[in-house]
């Protein structure tokens, strides 16, 4: 053994060697991470001080922002505790919108079974927000709805007639149901014959789908319609008529 190994220097070296695996973790994880985080936070603060208004006021800017985040693999809406949310205020904007969407859907569920057009949802949310609130675009609604999905209440979007139907109940809707909804979009109702003619289905399949929609409260049956029974989708009503169904009319139709 060399005499050189003994002494304060040697002891320090030995200690260092023991600590080394842990130090390497700190070097890898803590130091660059914390440093980078602080730097980034500063950049974000700077950006926020100049452009926070733009995000709040300008729906187009929000779209750009969201798409850029998605491209780099960042979800600015993942957490209210995230930097994006805290410093840019994006979080509160969308989370509040989420609350408003849930409330509108809940309020109308008894009428439309939990299915509403994106247009009607948009109108009603805007109305609820009042005239001094920030503008909200349909893109904003769509993003807010995507976030709501994580809470498992059956939130989803069904493409219909160039736009979407927003579903807010866990009713199971497969391709057959969706296709019938799309067929009904033009007039707000559909008949068995129309399904048979347009989709080339057999009567049984058409009836099976329509029965399911009736059971889930998404369709109402007008058996007194001239000719053939009509299956009406309340979700599609407001698109066509600007008045609500009166109680008398509602009595004629059976949910």
């Amino acid at each position, binding site marked *: 053994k060399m005499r050189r190994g003994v002494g304060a220097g040697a002891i320090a070296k030995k200690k260092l060697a023991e600590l080394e695996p842990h130090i390497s973790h700190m070097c890898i994880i803590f130091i660059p991470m914390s440093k980078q*985080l602080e730097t980034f936070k500063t*950049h974000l603060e700077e950006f926020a001080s*100049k452009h926070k208004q733009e995000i709040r006021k300008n729906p187009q800017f929000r779209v750009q922002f969201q798409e850029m985040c998605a491209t*780099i693999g960042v979800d600015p809406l993942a957490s209210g505790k995230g930097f994006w949310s805290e410093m840019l205020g994006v979080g*509160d904007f969308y*989370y509040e919108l*989420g609350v408003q969407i849930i409330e509108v859907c809940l309020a109308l569920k008894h009428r439309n079974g939990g299915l509403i057009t994106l247009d009607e949802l948009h109108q009603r949310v805007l109305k609820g927000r009042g005239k001094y609130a920030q503008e909200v675009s349909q893109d904003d609604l769509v993003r807010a709805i995507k*976030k709501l999905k994580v809470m498992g209440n059956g939130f989803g979007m069904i493409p219909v007639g160039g736009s979407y139907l927003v579903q807010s109940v866990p009713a199971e809707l497969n391709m057959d149901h969706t296709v019938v909804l799309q067929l009904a979009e033009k007039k707000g109702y559909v008949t068995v014959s129309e399904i048979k003619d347009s989709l080339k289905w057999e009567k049984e399949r058409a009836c099976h789908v329509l029965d399911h929609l009736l*059971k889930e409260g998404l369709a109402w049956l007008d058996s007194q319609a001239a000719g053939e029974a009509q299956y009406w989708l309340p979700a599609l009503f407001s698109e066509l008529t600007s008045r609500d169904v009166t109680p008398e009319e509602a009595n004629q139709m059976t949910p």
Partner: protein
Amino acid sequence: MDRFSWSNGLLEINETLVIQQRGVRLYDGDDKAKLDLGVTLLSTHRLIWRDIKNHECCIAMPLSQIIFFEEQAAGIGKSAKIVIHLHPVPANKEPGPYQYSKYSYIKLSFKEHGQIEFYRRLTEEMTKKRWENTPVSQPIPTGTGSQAGKTRAVGIVGIERKIEEKRKETDKNISEAFEDLSKLMVKAKEMVELSRSIANKIKDKQGDITEDETIRFKAYLLSMGIANPVTRETHGSGTHYHLQLAKQLGDMLQAPLEERGGMMALTEVYCLVNRARGMELLSPEDLVNACKMFESLKLPLRLRVFDSGVMVVQLQSHSEEEMIASALDNVSEKGSLTAEEFAKLLGLSVLLSKERLLLAEKMGHLCRDDSVEGLRFYPNLF
């Protein structure tokens, strides 16, 4: 109000101003329009309205949109109005303040009077229909600046210039914002790449990493909004933030849960909590991650997911057996129940009462009768 289009308020050649009146508020049908007080102008061709304070806010509608109009007398606390009934929106209408209206009429409310004269002039113009003799080529689109030779500012050159300046400044601000955004995103991307390299190193040193370090890393990911690439769970995908949140929720939800029969849909909780907070709201994921921690924190609440996917928070004290037993009692007493009827009975939401009935059915205590009239549950006598 959806018949109006944005306008710069400049009159066309051949278009003459007939009368203008201050202190006018617009109504969309019976509802106050989301605009403030303004000046309303009647020309030979159009009905124009401009915000008194914000001159850039200017809208117009061709007089040909008007079917007929009538006076509405003043009342106590109510100004006199002119109600104007309108043709449906034409397909080629330029954008305006309202995309859609359920009304086919508007009202002009004259806060500073002047309705008598305005009504008289409007009647005159609607009779003469001078716009038919001297048509203007097409509605003036906003924001594209003047089309040389087609428009002539009639005494409002200053306003046009101001609009143009404001627009240039706005454009400049926006392009600067976009530029800064791009630069920010480049830096954010670096953060994402760093997180990936750290995640890889963590994977390599699996077992050599302390829980504390893992939690710190998760907090880092949370701040940046980056999905967690390392699947090793300590407290779910939660962090200290979620831990604290879970405790707060434990306190906050006790009473509401008891009021609602021990169970609330997660979306209901989301609304309740965020409405109470007012700001610094929770994201849906924050809520889910916090609720996942109830069990490990030994709080008296649980997050539960039904087969349908519906997620609820329920009080631990409400045991499953009790719920099912009482559901069975209720159904037996009434002979049969639908989810709606059950909901009314318990004061629960239809969604949750349905879940309870389904659960009781799953346990074999109830059976169903599924018909077009609805889903009805009966005691299972088999």
